[in-house]
């Protein structure tokens, strides 16, 4: 204490009393001498070490005390029960059944799902009839499913890599063929990089939470697909919805958010616009140039789900960026499906290197799931190779789309919300009754899950459409209603028949199949009127 300045002496003498009692009690603890000597000598050697060790001790105690399984016994709502009362309550409690049996409607729906015998393709054989039928239900836009070259490559790869990768990408599951496919996708779309997920459906619900966290803002179309809805939900971000495919409504929302932020002087948070290229719910297409203009103006990042537009529109199937001639780098994240677009499996997210690298550590279904089988990755690579060099595939597909639309657009009993070039075509029943004025703003093709009146109407339409589907199946055309999880979607879309056209069918075949559908529609809905 010799070194202490004069002025500190009174303070030190004041502290001496309690300090010495503390010291004597401390000395009584067995082993304290050792600790004291240790602290003293270590302090002598290196005073900085004392601080370091102190910090360390605090840190260690904190981690020890952090337990993830603590019960919230001290919550204000906790009721104290005696042991006996608890036992009685346990005795009394009867849970609901884990799953309710299917309703008759669900049962017949499930039974009516067409099952393919053997390979699926443009003209598969059905298990139920044993006959072949024209397939307007399965996703085979570019007709790669029956490509012999791809099959041959797949067998070669099988003989080199086996099937499964037996590990997540982080732990020896990254194969050279995965990296090749990622490069192929990035190169094909014109982005810096891309990352592969092992299932298309799980891609977007993993990408969203990788970037958007609590407090971040998501602005999304009201009718985005189920996977996006789930991704938004799990991200716990603040979400604002705009009217389906209405960029005016989007701008209103963006303006109101900006106003809000200015008023509250909140911090700058990450902001995302999430929408689809071709909507899975109705085949409508977003106006990409306008959307990009808005996103740049209001400084949002754009997550564009191109599940149904990648490998289906554009001169060589690159999707919306090609169709609208927008550089892919203008879209922050392009998501697509190798399963739908390339007839293989898995999905991808293409974007800048930073966007991709971030997902390699933070995308839950990338990090915690095994990588996709090598032969499927190579099949997708081969698929890209073929479509980028064969623009005729997409010309043929467009011819078929035109042919189909030419037949269907003439019918008054139906309504087609899909974009004229979209190979995914949804068919709604045209309802003649006037739209109730209260929902004038709300798109007439969607119902809120609480609107039981509309939902009942939807049920009726659904049954009629199912009749059409089954009627066509009997005439050798495979169709499907758009299947949705009732009661789980944010908005209930109007029931529809969903066609997926393919370049593997000729124009004649497409016309013939669509005519069968037309006749059946006329028969069903004509009778109704």
């Amino acid at each position, binding site marked *: 204490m010799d070194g202490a300045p004069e002025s500190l002496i009174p303070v030190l003498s004041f502290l001496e009393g309690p300090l010495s009692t503390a010291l004597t009690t401390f000395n009584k603890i067995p082993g304290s001498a050792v600790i004291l000597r240790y602290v003293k000598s270590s302090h002598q050697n290196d005073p900085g070490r004392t601080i370091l060790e102190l910090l360390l001790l605090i840190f260690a105690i904190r981690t020890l005390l952090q337990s993830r399984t603590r019960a919230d016994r001290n919550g204000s709502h906790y009721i104290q029960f005696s042991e006996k009362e608890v036992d009685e309550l346990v005795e009394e409690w009867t849970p609901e059944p884990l799953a309710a049996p299917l309703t008759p409607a669900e049962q017949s729906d499930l039974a009516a799902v067409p099952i393919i015998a053997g390979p699926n393709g443009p003209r598969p054989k059905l298990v139920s009839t044993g006959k072949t039928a024209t397939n307007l*239900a399965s996703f085979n836009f570019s007709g790669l*499913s029956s490509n012999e070259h791809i099959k041959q490559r797949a067998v070669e790869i099988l003989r080199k890599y086996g099937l499964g990768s037996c590990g997540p990408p982080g732990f020896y599951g990254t194969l050279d063929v995965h990296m090749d496919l990622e490069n192929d996708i990035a190169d094909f779309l014109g982005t810096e990089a891309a990352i592969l997920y092992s299932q298309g*459906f799980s891609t977007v619900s993993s990408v969203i939470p990788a970037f958007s966290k609590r407090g971040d803002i998501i602005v999304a179309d009201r009718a985005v697909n189920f996977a996006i809805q789930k991704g938004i939900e799990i991200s716990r971000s603040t979400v604002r919805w705009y009217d389906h495919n209405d960029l005016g409504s989007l701008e209103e929302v963006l303006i109101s958010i900006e106003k809000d932020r200015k008023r509250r002087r909140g911090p700058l948070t990450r902001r995302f616009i999430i929408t689809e290229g071709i909507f899975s719910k109705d085949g409508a297409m977003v106006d990409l140039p306008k959307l990009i203009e808005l996103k740049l103006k209001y400084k949002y990042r754009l997550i564009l789900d191109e599940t149904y537009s990648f490998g289906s529109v554009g001169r060589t199937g690159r999707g919306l960026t090609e169709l609208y001639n927008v550089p892919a780098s203008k879209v922050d994240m392009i998501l697509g499906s190798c399963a739908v677009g390339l007839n293989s499996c898995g999905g991808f997210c293409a974007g800048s290197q930073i966007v991709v690298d971030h997902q390699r550590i933070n995308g839950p279904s990338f990090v915690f799931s095994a990588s996709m089988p090598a032969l499927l990755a190579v099949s997708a690579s081969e698929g890209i190779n073929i479509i980028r060099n064969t623009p005729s595939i997409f010309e043929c597909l467009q011819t078929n789309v035109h042919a189909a639309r030419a037949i269907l657009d003439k019918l008054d009993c139906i309504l087609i919300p899909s974009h004229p070039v979209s190979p995914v075509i949804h068919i709604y029943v045209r309802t003649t009754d006037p739209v109730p004025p209260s929902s004038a703003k709300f798109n007439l093709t969607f119902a809120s899950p609480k609107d039981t009146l509309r939902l009942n109407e939807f049920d009726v339409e659904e049954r009629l459409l199912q009749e059409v589907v089954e009627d066509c199946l009997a005439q050798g055309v495979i169709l499907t209603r758009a299947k949705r999880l009732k009661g789980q979607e944010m908005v209930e879309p109007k029931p529809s028949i969903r066609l997926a056209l393919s370049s593997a069918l000729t124009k004649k075949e497409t016309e013939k199949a669509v005519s069968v559908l037309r006749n059946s529609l006329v028969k069903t809905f004509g009778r109704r009127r």
Partner: protein
Amino acid sequence: MPLASPLPSPMALNRPQQSPSIFKKRSASGLGSGSPLPSSAASYLSALSQADARARSVSPTSTPALSLSSSVTSSSEDTILHEEEEDALMNSNADGLLLPTRPPNSAQVFSTVHTEFGHCANDKYRTTSQHKLGTPLPTHVEQDPPYYILLSTYVSYLILICLGHVRDFVGKRLSPSSYQHLMPQHGYAPLNSDFDSFYTRRLKTRMDECFSQPVTGVAGRTIMLLDRTSPDYNHTQLFTGTRTRALNISSYNYLGFAQARGGCADAVEESIKRYGISSLGARLEGGGTDLHNMGEALVANFTGMEDALICSMGFATNSTIIPALVSKGCLVISDELNHASIRFGTRISGASVRMFKHNNMKSLESLLKEVISQGQPKTHRPWKKILVVVEGLYSMEGTLVNLPGVLELKKKYKFYLFVDEAHSIGAIGPRGRGVADYFGVNPRSIDILMGTFTKSFGAAGGYIAGSKTIIDHLRVNGHSGAYAESMTPSVLTQVVASMASIMGVAPPDVPSKEIVHPGPVASASLPQWINLPLNLASGEEGTSRLRRLAFNCRYLHSGLIKLGFITYGHPASPIVPLLLFNPGKMNMFHKMMKQRQTPIVVVVVAYPATPLVTSRVRFCVSAAHTKEDIDTVLRACDEIGDVLDLKHGSVRGKDRWNVEQVIARAAELGSNDD
């Protein structure tokens, strides 16, 4: 055994003129039939295929449904090594990866490629994976290391954290451009803030060479690494263009079905030819084929449940099915160490979630008492239903769920039980049917069995098995049925073929009604075009794989303990974590294993996948490993363990063995009767 020594098989010396040789390229260039005696490695291989073919040609054909011809033709192919490896093979087998150290005698038949699935004929090295009734389940004890290890671990992290902050502080001022993407820019918030990414940038980057190592070829017994280096402290990784073959004790290839040759791969090839690549859509929207239905029936049969459904991704099986089981007003009780996919699924289900201490029945019971008596938060209404979600085998700890304990509680507390058997299906139990099989309980006492095909079956995707009512409900209400792509035919075929190989195929004259769980599969339930070779169809190979795996698990586990290491997990678990504690040792351990004469690749895991202090290396044992491979791993661990000061286990003094003792007494260590 040195390769230059005379081979025991006389056939090696008379290399046949017309052998179905794999060295096609070489024969063409004049090294073939007319050339002098082939080098020992070549003769070795031909001896192998000869012995193989001969043994097969005399084996009896019992069941007409099983084509023998396919096995004969494939036998000669089976021993093919890839061309690029011929040279290596000619030169040496110094790392012991390409050829078995002990060549086979003429009575031994191996139909696999040694690099994919090791040749191991010794029947001493086999065990059954089965719980001894009446014995208590070993509890999960977290052995603590000496204090200095704990202390130095904390200090290490502290230094890392301090250094990281200092570097960030200085870096942001000296080189702002490299921090640009972490800062707000042109009115955009950064995608990733410097705070959120601190761990990744400052801790994980230091050991990036341990992660995401690109590989090529089959993830079998060995794996081919694409070598890489980093010129700038792991910020970028460059490929050197060379490759290294390493012993693979990291892939989830428990039963060794990751193979490019053999009956399963043959079946997959056939399926590609017949079915093509994709099934083109969701199950409910025109993407379902007869093969899916067959696969689902087979899975139900395999697991012993009434019905099953298949999903094209394991992660998505949990994340899209759990929300169809529970919703608002329900409670999910989840083990604290459950997999991310389970947490994902429960979070989007809208149900409340509570966690209990890892595999701790006391904690589970007291939680159950609390939640049932308290009811829902605030309202105190009773819960609609309670779903307890556990894993069969935990992927980071190697612990087996205390299934008897959970089922005991289930009787009293009436919750529903969901067991994720991602790692345990195929790998655990005398017949590979998972934890229920291991503990000898009726699988139907569990409500929902979930599992994945990525692990034991060498495929991809997952399944859910349960009662018909539940599965039908999930077919319609689960997210994947309506929206997700269905499983591709090739993957399905791998699942069907590997599963049938584990079960064995019953002769066609046995009516399927007479086959009871866990018996063989009726041949009528398999696609007619799948012709499994006799050894697979008889179930002999499957049983031998299960027994080899069980031995390897116990041997490695007990061996490491005897050497003095701290390990976690159940001795029957194919996942064997070895505790390292200090973060710096992870890098070192990984590197030292890879740089040995026989390179070994390992998985090291640290925070946040594990608690902060218990960094570990995780071995995944496979049936494809031979006893000698496990010896190699034990030798490596022993040496490295001394260098890195890792031997802090509770086994001390005379109980501790040296590595030669361990290897000599392998049969004893690997048996199930300790």
